[in-house]
């Protein structure tokens, strides 16, 4: 069976995680992989928890929604609480450092806590790019796509004039993992 | 105990708050204004019925603690007509959006106005379809953008007050979320008017209208209404060049003429009387 990675991104409405998901998926496509991206719409989009999903695969993707995620990234407590149950046993859990976690979670998942939002807000002075930082973190931790593809995908999607900022965000994300 | 100001406690379902609207959305200001107007008029809560269509604006009905009816897109006035005629004791207030009322609901709008049925319509005009994500509406000014008007809107917008007047509405006024006190006064007058009243309340949608058209933040939108609203009475005295770029607010029409439901009740009385005389 072909290799398939199911990623879920959780956060709040304005955090750009859908764009993040699109970028991941497009990066995969640049590598000639298969990819789908889906999200939940709904009134939640204005506040509340929101999620985006990406599936990256070497082969066909039958069911295009994430059932049990291999990777779950959460930027808010709410999203973490809501979607954590759908993470696979031993799945990769990436959290913004502000998020509190039930101790048992550490046993069930590979937990990585990194200051994603802080990095964006304080280091890069643009809260907006937290999503890009986050994608870089995912890249580093999963290697499901290459840095090159990710950068190309980012540059294709972000507004003109923000290319440098976003590149910096990527680098900052990579650094977070190395640390 | 429920949260909020006295008006909120009295007239809102505060357990359903905070509402779902975006930060800075003008709809909240207008919704509060309606409650204040009702409070000022000391209406019997149980006899107030708020009817809305579908849209961000139309969600107001769900937050307000009256008999509330959230209908289908565009149909608020048609449902409201049924409610009012069936129970004339109810004070029927329609909350609707520019899309809800003047796009899909346009026909019910002009006919409610024609009948001069005693319904007060408060139209939350944010000049865009907020709920569905920023498509242009019949109130989007020409050349301004919406997601379905990426090159700028081709068709001109309605002058909604003119349309209401042309259709027969007996009370017609416009104000803005910024001019909330004036707005409240108009709502009160609309409710007091025995007939169809249209209060166009200019509302800010920073999320879509604002963003699409580079109008800045919620505060910027408020400032715009503050600076560019021109009272029609003041306008009468101004030279043309001072009016350029401004939009008119104020009472555009106020006339007393027979109201539909009471005319119908007169007819019921008359035919019943005639009948009993004939028996």
């Amino acid at each position, binding site marked *: 069976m072909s290799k398939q990675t199911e990623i879920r991104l959780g956060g709040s409405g304005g955090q750009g995680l859908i764009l993040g998901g699109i970028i991941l998926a497009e990066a995969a496509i640049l590598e000639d992989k298969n990819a789908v991206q889906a999200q939940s719409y709904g009134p939640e989009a204005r506040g509340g928890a929101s999620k985006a999903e990406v599936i990256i695969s070497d082969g066909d993707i039958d069911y295009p929604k994430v059932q049990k995620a291999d990777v779950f990234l959460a930027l808010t407590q709410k999203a973490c609480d809501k979607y954590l149950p759908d993470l696979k046993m031993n799945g990769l859990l990436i959290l913004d450092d502000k998020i509190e976690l039930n101790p048992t979670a550490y046993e069930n998942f590979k937990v990585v806590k990194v200051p994603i939002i802080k990095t964006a807000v304080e280091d890069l002075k643009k809260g907006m790019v937290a999503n890009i930082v986050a994608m870089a973190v995912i890249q580093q931790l999963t290697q499901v796509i290459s840095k090159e593809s990710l950068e190309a995908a980012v540059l294709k999607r972000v507004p003109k004039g923000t290319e440098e900022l976003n590149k910096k965000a990527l680098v900052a994300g990579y650094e977070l993992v190395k640390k | 105990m429920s949260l909020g100001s006295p008006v909120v406690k009295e007239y809102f379902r505060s357990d359903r708050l905070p509402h779902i609207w975006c930060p800075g959305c003008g709809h909240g200001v207008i919704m509060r204004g309606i409650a204040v107007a009702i409070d000022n008029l000391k209406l019997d809560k149980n006899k107030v019925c708020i009817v809305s269509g579908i849209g961000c604006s139309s969600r107001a*009905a769900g937050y307000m603690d009256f008999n509330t009816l959230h209908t289908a897109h565009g149909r608020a006035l048609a449902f409201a007509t049924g409610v009012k005629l069936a129970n004339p004791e109810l004070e029927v207030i329609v909350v609707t959006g520019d899309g809800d009322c003047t796009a899909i609901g346009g026909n019910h709008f002009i006919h409610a106005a024609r009948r001069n049925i005693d319904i007060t319509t408060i139209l939350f005009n944010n000049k865009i379809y907020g709920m569905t994500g920023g498509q242009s509406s019949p109130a989007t000014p020409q050349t301004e953008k919406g997601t379905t008007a990426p090159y700028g809107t081709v068709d001109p917008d309605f002058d909604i007050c003119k349309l209401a007047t042309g259709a027969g509405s007996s009370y017609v006024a416009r104000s803005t979320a910024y001019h909330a006190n004036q707005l409240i006064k108009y709502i009160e007058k609309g409710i007091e008017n025995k007939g169809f009243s249209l209060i166009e309340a200019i509302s800010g949608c920073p999320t879509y209208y604002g963003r699409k058209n580079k109008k800045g933040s919620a505060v910027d939108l408020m400032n715009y209404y503050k600076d560019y609203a021109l009272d029609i009475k003041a306008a009468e005295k101004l030279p043309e060049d001072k009016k350029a770029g401004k939009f008119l607010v104020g009472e555009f029409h106020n006339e007393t003429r027979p109201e539909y439901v009471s005319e119908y009740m007169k007819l019921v009385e008359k035919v019943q009387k005639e009948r009993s005389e004939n028996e």
Partner: protein
Amino acid sequence: MSKKVVKLMQGNEACVEGALAAGLQFYAGYPITPSTEIAEICSEKLPLVGGKFIQMEDEIAGMAATIGGSLAGLKSMTATSGPGFSLKQENIGYAAMAQIPCVVVDVMRAGPSTGLPTAPSQGDVMQAKWGTHGDHPTITLTPNSVREAFDLTVRAFNLAEKYRTPVFLLMDEVIGHLRERIEIPSPGEYEVFDRIKPIPNDKNYKAYAVKEGEIVPRMAAFGDGFSYHVTGLVYDEFGFPKTDTDVAENLLNHLMGKIENNVDDIITYEETQTEDAELLIIAYGGVARAAAKAVKECREQGLKVGLFRPITLWPFPEKRVNQLTQKSKKVLVVEMNLGQYVIPVHRVKEPDSKVFHYGKVNGEPIAPDEIIKKIKEAY
């Protein structure tokens, strides 16, 4: 004791008389052939009994105002024909969703589209079940005589009030425009059901919660002192919008269940010589009259033919149709359309019984002779 009133009356008129007998107080609609007489008679009679009639700007508004009238506490009705029935579909779905009792009459004419506006048809039978988007409950009745137009209108109101749902009265033009001798039943002779209201001032009233042992939520009228919310969105037991999956599922189950769990109360039909029928005719409305005559003539000729006449079209009387096809190995469905009611017959019939269909859509009613011919072909 009041003397029986015997009259020559049109189907459409009997429908109004039935509605008034059931307590109709509110009519909103838009005229369209061949249903217009219903509006016209309502416009005359309702004010006489203190009720309200309003001609709305279109059928959409007619349906909307009907729902509004019902919410304000009055028994409400609207009537239309094909094109208007299509237009009403969105708001019909609203009434189904928000559980608003009301009666919608569709006097069927030949479609599709404008079609043959004055010609009879039974072309809207499937639309009555599937016309609005999404899964939703449906109750549809269809009369075969002027007297039954009266009776079924009463029943339509009773079912609407009891199950808090829009109920369709589907009449074909044959019955709608037929003038026939009718003995109008006096008030004691028919049941009238009124919606169950909450106990006044009930502090625990939840607008959309079903009380133990009851079928549907009790329904307060606007103005009764219960400030509640009504919406076409998926809602919880208070009537407020919710997107939770279990709320959605419960609501849909309730909507469908209140009908499906009560089919025995809702479904009625009439049978003529079905006991020993080798060939069973299924026909409804005006066509059932022709079928009845055909059955008589065939019996005279020694053919064992019977007639099953559904009076409740929807929910489909599947139990009974299945039973009948255990005995009658041939079934002939006769209807003024190209094959609508025959579809569920196919679904529920016994595997070894064979289904034939005779449909006609040229604007003429189906005559007994045509049916006899088909019977003989199939027999």
